[in-house]
């Protein structure tokens, strides 16, 4: 057999093998369930799987030989050639064999999250890169939805637990409060018929005691109303006045403990839309906590109450202490019910604070104070006097 015939035969075999290999590759590219793209070392698209065509909205013919960078948004689009070059010079792997979540850009310009794994092959001194792409749109939507639901559920369960407790409390405590008020007010009436200095003093004291019982009833009523309906009795209130009232109540009798109180009030943080009693409860809670921790753990006892008006029409209220601070693992769970660092405590205070603040459309969080101690902060909605709301809101 002549040599040429041999060579021709060999060539035919090779061609057949090559065609078979290409056919296999094409069939793989047509049927592989994940999107798959093969590029050469200069970033030019060699082939695109059917799924990748669907995912990006380009057909194979449109992008064959084009640079892969047009499937990614800026800034990767501009830098991708550089990435390839760097890898080819340094051999340093940043994504190859590792896999990463990146953003892809479709033909219509929209983008989507995707997981990208890259494989590398060398043939005849040429590098090829194979990208395997998984569309994460659904997965991310599911995750976001799950997160949303989870926070709704935590919120609801906190609400339900508080709601049940408030409702039971309301009934059980309102009865004795009613009896207390009735007896005291009756006593005041009887004392009105008695002359003399002591009777006058007694009358006043008994009346004040009755008013305090009524105030307790008021707190319970509001708490219940607001856990049941998720809304309290909000008015336009002066924030400095709210703070003054709350700190007066919270600071009763603490002077002896050597606590220095200072205020840093932003004049621009004036009127807020708030349920006065509820926000006072939040403030009293935070101030009392701050005092307790300082008495327990620190010789330096500086309490600072501050306000700050933000540009987005919210105001921030802060209560900072110079106590021992919070361990990070406690800080993360601090606003959950029944979490407490106190020996005698139910762990409900901050949970209630959070429920109240969130119902006011604000948020509450805790920061470490740079020079030791903690800062509790919460936000409220700022408002103007006699605000006429607009429909277009």
């Amino acid at each position, binding site marked *: 057999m002549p040599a040429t015939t041999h060579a021709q035969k060999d060539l035919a075999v090779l061609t057949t093998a090559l065609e078979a290999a290409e056919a296999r590759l094409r069939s793989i590219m047509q049927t592989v369930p994940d999107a798959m793209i093969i590029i050469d070392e200069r970033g030019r698209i060699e082939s695109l799987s059917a799924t990748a065509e669907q995912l990006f909205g380009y057909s194979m013919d449109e992008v064959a030989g084009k640079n892969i960078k047009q499937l990614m948004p800026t800034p990767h689009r501009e830098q991708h050639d550089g990435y390839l070059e760097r890898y080819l010079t340094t051999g340093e792997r940043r994504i190859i064999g590792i896999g990463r979540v990146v953003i892809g850009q479709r033909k219509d310009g929209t983008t989507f999250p995707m997981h990208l794994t890259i494989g590398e092959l060398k043939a005849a001194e040429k590098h090829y890169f194979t990208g395997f792409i998984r569309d994460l749109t659904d997965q991310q939507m599911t995750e976001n939805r799950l997160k949303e639901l989870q926070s709704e559920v935590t919120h609801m369960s906190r609400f339900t637990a508080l709601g049940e407790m408030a*409702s039971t409390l*309301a*009934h059980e405590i*309102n*009865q*004795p*409060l*009613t*009896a*207390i*008020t*009735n*007896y005291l*007010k*009756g*006593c005041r*009436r*009887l004392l009105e018929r008695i002359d003399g200095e002591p009777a006058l003093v007694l009358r006043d004291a008994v009346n004040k005691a*009755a008013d305090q*019982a*009524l105030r307790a*009833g*008021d707190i319970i*009523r*509001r708490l219940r*109303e607001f856990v*049941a*309906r*998720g*809304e309290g*009795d*909000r*008015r*336009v209130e002066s924030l400095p006045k709210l703070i003054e009232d709350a700190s007066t109540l919270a600071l009763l009798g603490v002077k002896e403990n050597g606590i220095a109180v200072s205020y840093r009030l932003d004049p621009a943080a004036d009127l807020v*839309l708030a349920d006065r009693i509820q926000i006072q409860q939040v403030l009293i809670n935070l101030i009392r906590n701050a005092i307790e921790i300082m008495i327990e753990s620190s010789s330096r006892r500086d309490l600072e109450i501050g306000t700050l008006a933000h540009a987005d029409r919210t105001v921030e209220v802060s209560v900072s202490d110079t106590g021992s601070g919070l361990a990070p693992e406690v800080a993360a769970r601090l606003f959950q019910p029944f979490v407490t660092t106190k020996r005698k405590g139910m762990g409900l205070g901050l949970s209630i604070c959070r429920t109240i603040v969130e119902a006011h*459309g604000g948020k509450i969080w805790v920061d470490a104070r740079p020079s030791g101690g903690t800062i509790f902060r919460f936000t409220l909605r700022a*408002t103007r006097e*006699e*605000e006429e*709301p*607009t*429909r277009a*809101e």
Partner: protein
Amino acid sequence: MPNSQVVHVIDDDVEVRQSLAFLLSTAGLAVRVHESAVAFLTALPGAQDGCIVTDVRMPDMDGLELQRQLRAKKIGLPVIVITGHGDIALAVEAMKAGAVDFIEKPFDDEVLLGAIRSALARHAPDAEKEGRRAEIQGRLDLLSERESEVLDGLVAGKPNKIIAYDLGISARTVEVYRANVMTKMQAASLSELVRMVLLDGGVR
């Protein structure tokens, strides 16, 4: 006030009952206590004229059922409802059933005594009541149209979100209107607002 009139206090809680008897007697009122609505109805044939102060949530027969029974028996004693569960729906129901007043526990003595006095004097033309009505009407007149709409929603026991939906505005906006309504009506609480509108704002 005629001595023949008696305040009938009905509450299943013995302490509340007795404390009420004490308070009312210090104000010079004759009081009879009853441990349940059933016990009161049993004692009714011999009961003196006057008025009734009753709790709502009680075992066996609640305050609303008592009101129905009284009406069926054509007994016209005015009923003042007191409750530890002050929800708006309940207040509206009690008022519709014919209660002359609805007061949340714990209450200021003057609020209850005022209600009792006006209940006992119900036949007499009441200048004070008229004055009060005019005053509340004056406050109602201060409300803008939107504020009135929000007030209607509140009195119907609707939460902000539902009112917002009904009026096609945001819940935040409703909140601001609601704050304005409370201020203009000089109401200390939602239930006081409802009481004001139901009792004295009947002309609307």
